[in-house]
């Protein structure tokens, strides 16, 4: 059952439901991300499974009250497994008419809308581009609307603390948060502690008062027909934290450095939505982490390669146009066979595109965005928490195979959060590093017979002096060679080395039915596809889900798996990039299902597509 806010129960009796989607929406200045974050933490501590999806404008502060300025934060929480931030919010907290107008079309019919009526003036309607008051024109008839004089009530709550008018009004998001806590019967301790730690007097007090006043108001005036109770989910036992994809990447990098015993170097130039990796990593200096804010993405990549040569776990992170600038350095990394990791937090393209929106449209450039034949491994993370594991894996492969590795995440994973069961840090296996030290028989391009990787020989090592560069290398010696036959041999060796990575990858293993329709996903769409396939199977459709972590090389056994199913569907948040690739590799009639709206798939969209596909079988 979903939170449809059907009238009935009194405020004292809580209705038990198992799944809710709440969206907070307001101006960029209204603190919606912060409010959402607090609600998320409290929900996590309550023991629900959850997923979140922040959605904010490209402008720093778009004009107040306009559609362009609306910032949103969606949370899906449940007493069962959650894999997506939810298709349609059942509850919308709208801080002004623009927030209402921008989000209404997503709202579930019958859903609950809390609006701040203090912002429902003619001037506000005009700014939001509305003809009249939506509260009065019948356009909200399909919903349950709870009008609240948020500003006035907040003012009352914080009166006497000596706050100015602006400062007072800034507290209203806590009033709204308090109301929402009441609605879901939540303990406010976590947020109280956070406010105390975060704000100085008198703002700590003011925010606490607003929070409590909101909670009390909801209870006292019987604002809602019902309060809800979403019992904790049966998560696997363990210690949990909430984590976003960017956080998980950062922790993965720090862990990789510790587990390999090599210092971590990040070369980056700020760009949305990858910047937070640079920000968050720069606080881990106590781990010996060097973060280098370069003059541009080319310099970031060049410095990263230099650091790799120098023996660091060398990483560069970027998004969008930044990716286009790193191709030349990656090509040099391919030729010099040095280990580095490029983390591409994909965003809406092409060109500057939609900087704050999510997309999966960089698979092509990751695979093919270098001149000449320059093969490099590519993998993608599937959920915020999985970014941790994927990062560790990327570093491990880079070092083991002496190659640049491209790790794809996306805006949705980067900023979205989910509860993450903490790994046993001590149990994470070491990342073996074999530095060349013995001059006896040393050749810079002599290969390990198993992995075909060349030795990692750091400048500063006595007796291993050698020269590398971007010109074609002679086999073994690594000297410059213009010989055509050698070029062919080296090209095929570079290719073969990347293909050999597949040997250590787990075989492709679909979940679900052994025949029927196979839905193949990669990257951040994992959760939505997983959920849609599960629902489809419940609904009697024979189907299965195969999620690809590795895009290059593809996992072993994939050919057999794909051939086993009557139909293969590849949903992607792009114009179709993996689908054609699989067709190219396996010459099977694989179908693509694509969406490019800067938003993740909805489970319902996928389900509908699966149903259509299955009916055509």
């Amino acid at each position, binding site marked *: 059952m979903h939170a449809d806010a059907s009238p009935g129960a009194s405020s004292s009796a809580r209705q038990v439901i198992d799944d809710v989607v709440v969206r907070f929406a307001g101006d960029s200045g209204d603190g919606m991300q912060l409010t959402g974050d607090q609600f998320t933490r409290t929900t996590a501590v309550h023991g629900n499974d959850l997923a979140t999806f922040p959605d904010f404008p490209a402008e720093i502060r778009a004009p107040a009250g306009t559609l362009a300025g609306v910032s949103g934060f969606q949370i899906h929480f449940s007493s069962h497994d959650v894999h997506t931030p939810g298709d349609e919010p059942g509850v919308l907290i709208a801080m002004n008419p623009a927030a209402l107008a921008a989000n209404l079309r997503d709202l579930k019919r019958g859903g609950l809308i809390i609006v701040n009526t203090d912002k429902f003036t003619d001037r506000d309607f005009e700014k939001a581009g509305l003809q009249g008051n939506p509260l009065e024109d019948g356009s909200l008839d399909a919903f349950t609307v709870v009008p609240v004089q948020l500003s006035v009530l907040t003012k009352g709550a914080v009166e006497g603390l000596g706050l100015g008018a602006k400062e007072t009004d800034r507290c209203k998001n806590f009033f709204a948060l308090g109301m929402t806590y009441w609605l879901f019967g939540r303990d406010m301790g*976590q947020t109280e502690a956070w406010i105390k730690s975060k704000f100085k007097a008198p703002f700590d007090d003011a925010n606490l008062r607003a929070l409590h006043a909101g909670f009390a108001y909801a209870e006292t005036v019987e604002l809602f027909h019902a309060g809800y109770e979403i019992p904790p989910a049966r998560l*696997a036992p363990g210690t949990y934290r909430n984590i976003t994809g960017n956080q998980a990447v950062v922790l993965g990098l720090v862990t990789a450095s510790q587990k390999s015993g090599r210092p971590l*170097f990040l070369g980056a130039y700020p760009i949305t939505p990858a910047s937070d990796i640079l920000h968050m990593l720069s606080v881990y200096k106590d781990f*010996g982490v060097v973060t*280098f804010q370069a003059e541009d993405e080319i310099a970031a990549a060049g410095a990263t390669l230099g650091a790799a040569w120098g023996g660091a776990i060398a990483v560069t992170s970027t998004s969008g146009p930044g990716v286009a600038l790193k191709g030349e350095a990656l090509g040099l990394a391919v030729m010099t066979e040095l280990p580095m990791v490029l983390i591409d937090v994909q965003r809406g393209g092409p060109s500057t595109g939609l900087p704050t929106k999510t997309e999966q449209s960089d698979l092509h450039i990751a695979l093919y965005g270098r001149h000449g034949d320059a093969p490099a491994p590519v993998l993608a993370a599937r959920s915020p928490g999985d970014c941790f594991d994927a990062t560790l894996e990327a570093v491990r492969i880079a070092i083991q195979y002496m190659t640049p590795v491209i790790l794809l995440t996306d805006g949705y994973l980067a900023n979205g959060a989910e509860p993450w069961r903490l790994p046993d840090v001590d149990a994470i296996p070491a990342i073996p590093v074999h530095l060349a030290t013995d001059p006896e028989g040393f050749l810079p391009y002599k290969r390990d017979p198993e992995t075909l990787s060349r030795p990692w020989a750091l*400048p500063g090592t006595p007796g291993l*002096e050698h*020269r590398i560069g971007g010109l074609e290398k002679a086999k073994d010696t690594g000297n410059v060679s213009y010989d055509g036959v050698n070029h062919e041999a080296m090209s095929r060796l570079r290719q073969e080395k990347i293909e050999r990575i597949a040997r250590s990858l787990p075989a492709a293993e679909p979940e679900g039915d052994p025949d029927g329709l196979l839905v193949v996903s990669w990257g951040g769409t994992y959760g939505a596809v997983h959920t849609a396939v599960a629902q489809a199977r419940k609904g009697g459709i024979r189907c299965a889900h195969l999620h690809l972590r590795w895009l290059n090389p593809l996992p072993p056994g994939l050919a057999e798996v794909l051939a086993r199913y009557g139909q293969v569907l590849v949903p992607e948040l792009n114009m179709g990039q993996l689908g054609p690739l699989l067709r190219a590799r396996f010459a099977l009639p694989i179908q693509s299902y694509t969406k490019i709206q800067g938003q993740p798939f909805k489970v319902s969209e996928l389900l509908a597509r699966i149903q259509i596909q299955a009916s055509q079988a």
Partner: protein
Amino acid sequence: MSSVEDTPAYTKKDFMSDQTIKWCPGCGDYSILSQVQTVFAELGIPRHKFAIVSGIGCSSRFPYYMSTYGFHSIHGRAPTVATGLKLANPDLSVWVVTGDGDALSIGGNHFIHLLRRNVDLQVLMFNNRIYGLTKGQYSPTSESGKRTKSSPMGSVDRPFNPCGVALGADATFVARTVDIFVKEQRDVLLAAHQHKGSSFVEIWQNCSIFNDGAFKDWTEKKAREERILFVQHGQPLIYGAKDAQKGLVLQPNLTLKVIDVLTPEDRARVLVHDETNLVMATLLARMGDETMPTAMGVLYRVAHPVYEEGVHAQIEAARSKPGAADLKKAVYGGNTWKVEG
């Protein structure tokens, strides 16, 4: 750096690699190579602690001919690779070898940012005022009006003054020398090595194929005395033959003038080189029209914090805090909760 005892006594030969040198006959790169090999042997640094990073160009083939660590990287990007390397291992003696095209055309941005940051390494820019490797197009240091394959009616571009660009970018060490000036080049290379921070050395280099004789009006035996001023900190700006000395004086309108230095009074009027003064360096860097000599030697040298030291100092400070580098704490973060089995 390792202690002196570790360091073998080298000769120039110890820095010659086994690779056949592929520069053209008569190329000025040969004599620079020879000087660098000579100087490296004197620095007291073990061979394996040297790393030479270059871009692309004839000059950038340099690392192959040195028996040290070497990285022949991408056109224009050597400063970035060198910065990453130096940050990863500040213990290395890092030398960037680049050309006028590599450093100032495609690589101009990395060049100025390197100097601004003041990473402790040396940049040797072989300025032949031409693109050698791509067979003779004009470069950003070619004189206006130069006729080349890509400028059949003469180039319309104004050239950069490389030392001027470096000074504009707040370089902390700026020097100029010439491929065939053996002793003076050696002094400059030694000074560059000693300087803590980014040392920029412009080396005039003859391209015998595409720009032969570009510098001969200054470097031919006779011209040297008349057209070259070797500057030295604390010394008056005097040049010319012994019997016909000339000196530079500052005019009220903030320009330089050449005077004959005949009397002690004349001598007293002559400006004294102050390598810590940016205005002095600007004046010296930009001399060179017909009436003025060209300044050679260390034009500018000031002490400034070194980039990678600052970076690593922060790391050390962070490390020394109690509870530092606790991986479990980092991974767990501030807000955790338990789900019981």
